[in-house]
């Protein structure tokens, strides 16, 4: 992975820069010891690492503002970091950059059940936002699978999704307002407890901008009352194509499940060996979950099962208890872990039109043979967000490169059939250079022009999102 060469002028001024940061932050909030900064050298895309110049852990919006003002004056790049769970390298530093971690900012600032929102500092984890409103039976809907660890800051940066966004939407659909610090230290507020912020939709623009437009320190999030209950049904089919048709028919029938998850045979076998959830050994498996009262769940499942039967399922397993529901979800939830037991893996995130599912799965199978690397598919079928997991051996020379080449081919295929490179993980460094397959130069130029407005010196989260060749001129001009 190419990264721009660090600016030697910044490296040589490290002591001064760190001293200035120390002058605006408490002593323990500035980390510059080369051993300690190693903790920030990568995120969950561990194949790529680079220790930062230093890391800072501000505890308030004012401290974030002070840090950014210093970095702006010094011309030092800043890499904002939530919990470091990005699978796309969204929080990977460069050697001349300061990591700005928001982990110390994790307070709940306001909870309002009547108006159905919560205001939090963005270092708070996704799960603990729901946790904060659980006693009143409310929850925060977006549920990325890293929700135990991932921070709201990163969720906003990447516009994170999750298994249940078929019904509840992704982060951008649940974000009401932000307090954000601009690269020059200015603090702005957009939106709030009301719906639809005034003026141009800057809130929508910031969500998913991968920390390149500002550092969001506070967020107002929509919270929802929990449904009375939820229950999954598991169904197995003897071909991916049939399973794909079943998904389509369920959606067309007007029943809106909260989740439709899909696993293919390699993934089913791996999870079965790992978790023993009792999944049938079949070509394709669907888990469909519905919500409501007992009667409502019954009625919805009855219709879903009737649709499934028209596709001759090899297995139909309706959950009869909380225990059985947990067992149905067990395999799906351990899928990534199970694949990890077999080998190192790379998790992709392309989205395709649901109708293209059978074709794309077939082509992935063919490519798997061509590249000589196994791949398992587990994904959110209702919205076409695929997660092919390519297995490789990190210790085998050339395997990572082969895996990346395979991954790139799959993503190109996703774009070719009318989809996109990434549905919920973000571009980061991982898919940066593939952006040209989805966008024409003009389409990228207008996005970069947006960054020019927010961050004219191109200091925030450098070398992400845009192909280096496309953003070179701007970075050089800014230096």
């Amino acid at each position, binding site marked *: 992975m190419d990264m721009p060469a660090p600016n030697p002028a910044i490296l040589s001024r490290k002591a001064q820069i760190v001293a200035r940061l120390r002058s605006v932050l408490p002593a323990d909030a500035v980390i510059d010891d080369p051993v300690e900064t190693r903790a920030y050298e990568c995120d969950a895309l561990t194949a790529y690492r680079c220790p930062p110049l230093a890391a800072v852990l501000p505890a308030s919006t004012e401290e974030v503002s002070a840090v950014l003002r210093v970095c702006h004056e010094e011309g030092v790049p800043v890499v904002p970091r939530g919990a470091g769970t990005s699978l796309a390298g969204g929080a990977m530093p460069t050697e001349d950059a300061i990591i700005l971690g928001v982990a110390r900012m994790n307070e709940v600032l306001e909870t309002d059940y009547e108006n159905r929102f919560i205001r939090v500092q963005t270092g708070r984890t996704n799960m603990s936002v729901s946790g904060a409103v659980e006693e009143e039976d409310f929850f925060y809907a977006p549920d990325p699978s890293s929700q135990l660890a991932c921070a709201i800051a990163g969720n906003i940066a990447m516009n994170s999704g999750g298994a249940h966004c078929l019904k509840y939407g992704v982060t951008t659909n649940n974000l009401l307002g932000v307090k954000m610090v601009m690269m020059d230290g200015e603090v702005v507020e957009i939106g709030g407890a009301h719906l639809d912020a005034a003026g141009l939709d*800057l809130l929508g623009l910031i969500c998913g901008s991968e920390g390149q437009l500002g550092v969001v320190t506070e967020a107002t999030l929509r919270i929802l009352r929990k449904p009375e209950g939820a229950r999954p049904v598991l169904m197995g089919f003897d071909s991916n194509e049939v399973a794909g048709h079943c998904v389509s028919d369920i959606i067309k029938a007007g029943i809106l499940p909260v989740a439709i998850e899909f696993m293919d045979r390699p993934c089913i076998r791996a999870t079965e060996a790992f978790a023993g959830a009792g999944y049938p050994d079949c070509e394709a498996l669907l888990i469909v979950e519905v919500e409501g009262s007992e009667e409502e769940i019954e009625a919805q499942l009855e219709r879903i099962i009737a649709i499934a039967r028209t596709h001759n399922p090899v297995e139909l397993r309706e959950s009869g208890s909380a225990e059985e529901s947990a067992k149905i979800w067990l395999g799906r939830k351990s899928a990534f872990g199970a694949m990890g037991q077999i080998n190192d893996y790379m998790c992709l995130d392309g989205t395709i039109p649901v109708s293209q599912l059978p074709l794309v799965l077939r082509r992935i199978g063919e490519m798997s043979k061509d590249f000589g690397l196994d791949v398992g598919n587990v994904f959110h079928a209702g919205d076409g967000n695929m997660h092919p997991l390519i297995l490789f051996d990190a210790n085998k020379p050339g395997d990572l490169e082969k895996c990346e080449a395979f991954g790139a081919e799959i993503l190109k295929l996703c774009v070719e059939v009318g989809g996109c490179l990434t549905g919920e993980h973000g571009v980061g460094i991982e898919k940066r250079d593939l952006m040209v397959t989805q966008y024409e130069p003009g389409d990228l130029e207008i996005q970069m022009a947006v960054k020019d407005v927010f961050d004219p010196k191109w200091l925030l989260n450098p070398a992400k999102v845009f192909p280096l060749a496309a953003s070179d001129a701007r970075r050089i001009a800014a230096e």
Partner: protein
Amino acid sequence: MKPNNETELAEMVAAAKGPLQIIGGGTRDIGAPVDGDRLSAAGLSGVSLYEPGALTLVAGAGTPLEEIETVLAGENQRLAFEPMDHRVLLGTDGTPTIGGVVAANVSGPRRIQVGACRDSALGVRFVDGTGQILKNGGRVMKNVTGYDLVKLMAGSWGTLGVLSEVSLKVQAIPEAEATLVGRGLSARDAIAALSAALGSPFDVSGAAFLTDGGEAYVRVEGLADSVNYRIKRMQAEMCAGWEVLEGEKSAEMWRNIRDVSPLSGSHDAIWRLSVKPTDAPEILQELGDPKAVCDWGGGLIWLAMSEGGDGGAARVRAVVARLGGHATLVRGSDALRRNVDVFQPEAAPLAAISKGLRARFDPRGILNPGLMG
């Protein structure tokens, strides 16, 4: 000017010598009046892709909304966000287009459950102020590839680009709907009941209050048995004694709320406020209890103020400034709309960002200049 395709549109924008007034069907005459040559997107019409099984539709920006609704209804589907028809309130003629809906981010009562128009918008194609054809997003439901300019374009009122094509997520029409109606309620009691309903597990898809008659409405949709169940539960909990409207009677009621029909016909200035729902009673009181339609559980207030003087601008904006939210003058004479800020004035740093974005998307400042302020 009325281009017949995207290429013609791009050529016309590139060749423009002065300001352009961008319109779709011309039914939403909102914003500061624009002096410029009229450029209509109505010629960019037609549904180019519709996949009912993927809940996706792609159409030219000039496609009549009615055509889209008819195509969707053929597969028992609809636009989830229930866009308002502004002709009723504004007294305009013409044919609403899907591009106009997206450009103005027009959403109706179901916004509280399924999000706004911008939340259903999956992709856009547009022509920027230099005549360049650009695209963002696509036609899949989850897409975080690059910056989300789809959201930015939705609600930018043609000031950043002229939409040529939009891609939307659609929704299945549920089997049944029903509405609970409470009467003779104070604003405070009504909003409290709406909040309780919206905070219940019963998946409310509409929650409104009309000051006339103190009437409050709560809608649920879904499978028939489920609708009945939820109606009964709410009658037992937060809507005791409320009457039930079903089927077409319920649908008609919500069309009236969606189109703000109770405020049509007068010559008053009409304001649209987006606020924290529980602030609604205080806002109404402070503004002298004007005739109002409160949607979104109280979070969206439509109210009529006398057209004289500043049309109530100072008073409306003062209360919004104190309690939070924003206000738009949706209906007013040309003179009034030239004299007061139609859209909520932005704080200085945000105004600078908006100005910077406009300068990048429309460097010559020819696309609906001044419409948003």
